């Protein structure tokens, strides 16, 4: 037993000095995640304001200007281009100069008096984000403006009776409170998930290479000639990577809280504890890739696949509960899927184990199973 521990320690020592000696590699390992965080943080905007809009106002009267102003004042649309007619608006959207357009027909004011005015709003349907926020914003603003007009008219025509309605125009006021992120800050939404993504990527990519690289260079034979057992070998390779992942996690978390001002609601100790099964699971997945792949190239391709799946199927960007069964199933083979819920739960909601235990349990089971499969696979490949 004692000797076993000694062997593992020796391996850890060897791997650590190997890791630390290659300064450029180390810089990559730690520097790239930081770069990723910064770009992500500034790139992500989930609520889209200021859609560039072309305006074809064929009336140029008070009402039409009022309506355009209502759209611009909402902050959802920016008046960036003046067009003559629908064809020109269409062309500007075709060319990608604007994402939305409005066409107001001639005699807008008169038509409103007659009660039969209509305006056409065009949205660029090749960009899902623009459509989503543009559609509901445009519908609401138009509706609101229409109601204002109706009330104004009722007041004029209906005299005293209707002025009672006008008094406090809306019967219901809706107020929204966004829990955990009251100011709707984009970064708050994504940081907890990005954190997991970055750590998982580092863990999988590094672990995916360890075994296969040694095999490709030929040094695997030398290690095998020593009395080291496969499981010990994996353990020895894992510990330095585990530390590295924690370092990355710490840096990203520190930057998120101190630089980007994300408020950490829950218990930081709990968070660091629960990161352990997550990192182990990610490393395990990487080792599995390493034992399956024949060469570094295959290992790279497989870890790229894991990265893409994590980006799109783990719930990082797109919601999981509206996915069909098979993509959702694939997502559940990614450690990130479980950790995103844990990370959001602790960082944003401030919840504890009672709400998180199913995901924690899954991660623990996942890491045990994946490590077992990886070391079995490894043993088989060695023989």
């Amino acid at each position, binding site marked *: 037993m004692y000797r076993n521990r000694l062997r593992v320690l020796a391996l850890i020592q060897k791997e650590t000095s190997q890791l630390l000696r290659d300064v450029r*590699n180390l810089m990559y390992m730690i520097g790239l995640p930081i770069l*990723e965080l910064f770009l*992500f943080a*500034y790139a*992500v*905007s*989930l609520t*889209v304001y200021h859609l560039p809009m072309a305006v074809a106002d064929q009336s140029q009267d008070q009402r039409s200007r009022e309506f355009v102003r209502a759209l611009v004042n909402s902050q959802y649309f920016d008046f960036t281009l003046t067009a003559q007619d629908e064809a020109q608006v269409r062309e500007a*959207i075709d*060319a*990608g100069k604007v994402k939305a357009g409005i066409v107001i027909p001639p005699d807008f004011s008169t*038509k*409103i008096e*007659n009660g039969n005015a209509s*305006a*056409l709003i065009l*949205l*660029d*349907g*090749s960009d899902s984000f623009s*459509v*989503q*926020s543009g559609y*509901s914003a*445009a*519908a609401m603003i138009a*509706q609101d*403006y*229409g109601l204002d*007009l*109706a009330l104004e008219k*009722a007041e004029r*025509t*209906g005299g005293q009776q*209707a002025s009672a*309605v006008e008094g406090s125009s*809306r*019967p*219901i006021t*809706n*107020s*929204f*409170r966004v*829990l955990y992120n009251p100011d709707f800050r*984009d970064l708050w*939404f994504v940081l907890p998930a990005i954190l997991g993504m970055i750590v998982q*990527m580092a863990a999988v990519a590094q672990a995916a*290479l360890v075994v296969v*690289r040694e095999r*490709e260079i030929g040094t695997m034979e030398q290690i095998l000639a020593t009395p080291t057992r496969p499981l010990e070998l994996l353990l020895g390779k894992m510990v330095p990577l585990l530390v590295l992942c924690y370092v990355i996690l710490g840096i990203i978390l520190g930057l998120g809280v101190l630089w980007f001002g994300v408020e950490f609601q829950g218990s930081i100790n709990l968070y660091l504890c629960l990161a352990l099964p997550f990192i182990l699971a990610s490393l395990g997945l990487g080792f599995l890739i390493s034992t399956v792949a024949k060469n*570094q190239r*295959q290992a790279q391709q497989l*870890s790229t696949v894991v*990265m893409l799946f994590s980006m799109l199927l783990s*719930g990082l960007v797109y*919601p999981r509960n509206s*996915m069909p069964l098979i*993509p959702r199933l694939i997502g559940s083979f990614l450690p990130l899927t479980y950790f995103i819920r844990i990370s*959001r739960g602790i960082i944003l909601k401030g919840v504890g184990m009672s*709400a998180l235990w199913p995901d924690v349990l899954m991660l623990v089971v996942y890491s045990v199973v994946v490590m077992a499969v990886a070391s079995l696979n490894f043993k088989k490949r060695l023989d």
Partner: protein
Amino acid sequence: MLKRVWAITQKEFITTFRDRGTLAIILLMPLVQLTLFAYGVRTDVKHIPMVVADQSLDRASRAYIDDLVQSGYFDVVQSVPDQAGVVSLIDQGKAKLGVVIPNDFSGQVDRHTASILFLVDGSDPFTTQSAYNAANLIAQQHSVQLVLEELSRLGSTSSGFSLVPLTAQIRILYNPDLKDLWFFVPGMIAMLLQIQAIILTALAVVREREAGTIEQVLVTPIRPGELMLGKTLPYLLLAIINLVSIILLGTVGFGVPFRGDFVLFFWLVLLYIISGLGLGLLISSISQNQQQAQQLAMMTMLLGLIISGFVFPHYSMPIVLRGISYIFPLTAFIPIARGIFMKGIGLPFLTNQVLFLVVYDVVILIIAARLFRQTLD
């Protein structure tokens, strides 16, 4: 010269084709990914779990909740007595949206003093956004409806005036039914081709250096430029196979309409693939070992994914970031792919992007060749 390039090409072909596992991954992975992502990604979220705290339980409050449910956006998963109950369910993740309707709702509606509180789970960005937008719109519609009913009751004497004098027609161009597949397939094609191209060449040079075989190649009369060319050609062919299979799957398999000129698209994709291969070669020449090359390639892919406009809209990013995003050819190609695929536009609308790609190709190949020569010496 051609003969020497051809020799290298042949050699690369043989190494690539002998490695059946890798070849299978190269050819099949993009198809698998396209299928999964195309079906997996849903941007319009329906059936969001909702918890209701209806403290009135009268006609007005029920009508209000009916409106929310009938929109198809929300499913009532549970009813609770008060706001604390709502928050606790959202904390547990069982509901994403909560509605709190106060006491005496009917009376308040009549007096125009009713107010409703929506609580939205702010930890899940997409759902939050959809829930927020939908609830906002439906709630407003409901309240407009109430005002109009009231107006028509009061104004029944003055007959013949239509209630809302303005109707806004909203037309969504190119994708009127808002099909997610239509949104995603063009961008996905661009993304997968970029990833393929980078992966293919990122290891090409560094692998030989690590294996030590580059020395053997160097003692032959082959020049660096020829070596590079010879190494790129087979991958160009593989990338073209990928391209054709992906487009076929997207259009024939998934029924996404291809509105533009296919021949034009093909040539522009070729231009684009070359830029990706060049970027891969660049990575390969500056890396000391396969591990570094892999890390750089991964980062390039991930960053391309984030800041190119594939996932998040490009125009809402800060200007500096938009500048940086042009390091990745994907940024210029996404408008081309969406433009030709969905909008059916031609070259005149895309000159900027096409010019950019041409310049990018030339520059990246020159830089890669320089660096390549440097690392050889």
